[in-house]
Structures are given as C-alpha cells and as structure tokens.
C-alpha cells in the first residue's frame, strides 16, 4: 500500500531506513527542521542544515524512489535564543524558493516561555507573508496541555487560515480543541513517550479521519519509522479497507501538503480493472 510519511527526520536516519520504507510502500517523506540534540551557536549552522535537508536529502531519498520534501524553521527549543533566531529568520525566505520546501515548521512551544512565543509569532507572520504552510510542534509530556492551549491562543490573534496549519503530536487530551478550531492535527507514533499505533487507531475511530495525519517522526532519539506501518497494520486488522487506510496514510498527507503546489503527489483511489477474457489458443 502506498504511504506518505509526513513528518520524518531523515538526517538522523540511515539509508537502510529509506530502503525499508521504500519496500514497505513509502512514496514520500517530509522533513521538518528540528533540534540537532544540542543548541546551535551560529545562524550559519542553521543555514547549512537547511541546505542539507533541502539539497542533499532529496538526492539520498531518490536513490530509493522516495520523494523528499522539507520545512525550514527555528525549532521551539532553540527559539529560546531570540537574537540567533531573528538572524536565522532573515535568511529563511531564500529557502522558500527551493523546489522541495513546503513551509515553516516545526515551530511552537517547548517550555512555553516568552522567548519561544516571540519567535513562534515571528515565524507564523513570516509564513503568512510568504504564503507558506505551517507545522506546529506541541510540547512533550506534562507540558503538552499548557503548550497546546497557548498555541491556540496565539494563533487565534493572528490572521492564519487554519486549513493551512498542522498542529502535531496531539494525543487524547489535546486533540479536540485544535480539530474543532479547524486545524489539521497529527499523531506522532513513538515507542514509549508519545502516541502508540493502537491509541492512534482509537482516535481515528473516535474522531473520523478528516484533517488527521499520522507520522512516526523518527529522529535521532529512541524512535522507529515503522511505527507508522504498525499503525496501518493495526488499522487494517480492525477491519477497515485498504481504501480507508489509503485515505489516512496517503491521501490526507497528499491533501494537506498538496496545498503547496510543490508537493505534487495526488490522492489516489483503488480501482478494479475489468480485464477482457480472450481465447488463449
């Protein structure tokens, strides 16, 4: 089955991951800009990183027949340094010109501080100005509710079109508000700390599958790109059809990301081919 992996940190993963993803039906990945595991000191370090995900990663993915897209941003953790962040922001528009850059992300809150908020707002404003899609990270664990609420408050005062905004890492306690406000939401499947494939299927059963994305977000930490395929398997095992699964794991990311015309993978529909039976003489 064809799958799109809408949130994937390829730079932290091996070629073998691309290979296995290709073999398990992944046709495209989208890579948001994220924290490297340490706070970077220079704006240039970010710009080289943006070059890595916008120039090098697409070539590596193409080796396996996978299309690679990316997002640029100062992530929530490093947004704690506003001077550095503003320097990086000055250069981000250059990257919107690149053929695989889809928008500004992942931005948002880590500890929900004033500095983070200033840089979050500045990046949302820039995304609106340059007509870019927006991908928002919500905090981990005990900070998630507070950070998600603040995210929605900040956005409500800004001139964003909710259909072009994806609020990621929602779980049972944070899904309702963003969905009701018209945003796209994402489930991040992690081995221990975020949502599990089973719980993701539960939420799909409870909330339907409109404006919902599922991703494994695999990065340099304990994570696994194949939690996404586990979720597909779990969903199918509950009796849903291949087309139902395609709607969630291929067509929804195609719909959301396809709002940027650079993302040219269209939703698909299974069809039975009526073959003519001819005499085999």
């Amino acid at each position: 089955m064809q799958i799109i992996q809408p949130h994937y940190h390829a730079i932290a993963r091996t070629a073998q991951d691309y290979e296995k993803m290709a073999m398990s039906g992944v046709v495209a990945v989208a890579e948001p800009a994220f924290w490297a595991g340490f706070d970077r000191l220079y704006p240039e370090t970010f710009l080289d990183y943006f070059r890595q995900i916008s120039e090098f990663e697409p070539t590596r993915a193409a080796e396996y027949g996978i299309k690679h897209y990316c997002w640029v941003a100062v992530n929530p953790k490093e947004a704690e340094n506003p001077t550095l962040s503003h320097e990086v922001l000055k250069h981000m528009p250059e990257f919107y010109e690149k053929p695989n850059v889809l928008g500004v992300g992942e931005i948002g809150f880590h500890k929900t501080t004033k500095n983070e908020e200033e840089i979050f707002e500045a990046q949302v404003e820039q995304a609106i100005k340059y007509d870019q899609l927006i991908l928002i990270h919500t905090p981990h664990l005990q900070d998630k509710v507070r950070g998600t609420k603040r995210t929605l408050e900040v956005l409500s005062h800004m001139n964003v079109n909710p259909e072009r905004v994806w609020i990621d890492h929602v779980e049972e306690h944070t899904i309702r508000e963003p969905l009701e406000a018209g945003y796209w939401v994402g489930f991040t499947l992690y081995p221990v700390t975020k949502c599990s494939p089973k719980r993701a299927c539960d939420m799909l059963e409870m909330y339907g599958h409109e404006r919902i994305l599922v991703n494994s977000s695999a990065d340099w930490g304990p994570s696994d790109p194949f939690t996404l395929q586990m979720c597909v398997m779990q969903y199918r095992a509950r009796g849903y059809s291949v087309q139902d699964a395609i709607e969630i794991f291929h067509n929804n990311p195609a719909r959301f990301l396809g709002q940027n015309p650079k993302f040219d993978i269209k939703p698909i529909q299974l069809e039975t081919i009526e073959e003519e039976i001819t005499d085999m003489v």
Partner: protein
Amino acid sequence: MQTALQVLDREYLEARCSLLELAAALDRIDRAHDHEEASGDLQDSRLDLLNQAIKILSEESHLPNRSERLLLLFSDLD
C-alpha cells in the same frame, strides 16, 4: 545496584506508557460494547481479572511482589 531514584528515572516513562495503554484498552472495550445492540453490563471473567489486578496495584500498593501476585491471579490454580 541502582538507587531507587535511578530506577524511577529509568522506568517512569515506560510505566506511564503501560498505564496509558491499559487505559486505552479498557476504553476500547467500553466503546465497542457501547456500540453493540444488547449493551448492559459486559460479563466476562477476564474483565473481572483485569479489574482485580488494577485493585491489587492501587489498594495494596504498599505490598511487595506485585508481579507475582498478579501472575497468581491470572493462573489456574485448581
């Protein structure tokens, strides 16, 4: 041997995850049951066992050997 704090550091997230999975599984059973035509109380001895196990973990949390007591609960002892 690790200190209690070190063990907690290592185990907290996994324990949290196990509890969430358990909560989600119980919700899943409830939701499926609510959809069924003849709902009412779901009678199944396995559900009773799960509820007894949860009681062992909560009400008797000061007692040791929780895993042993749970396994005995889930065992056929006759």
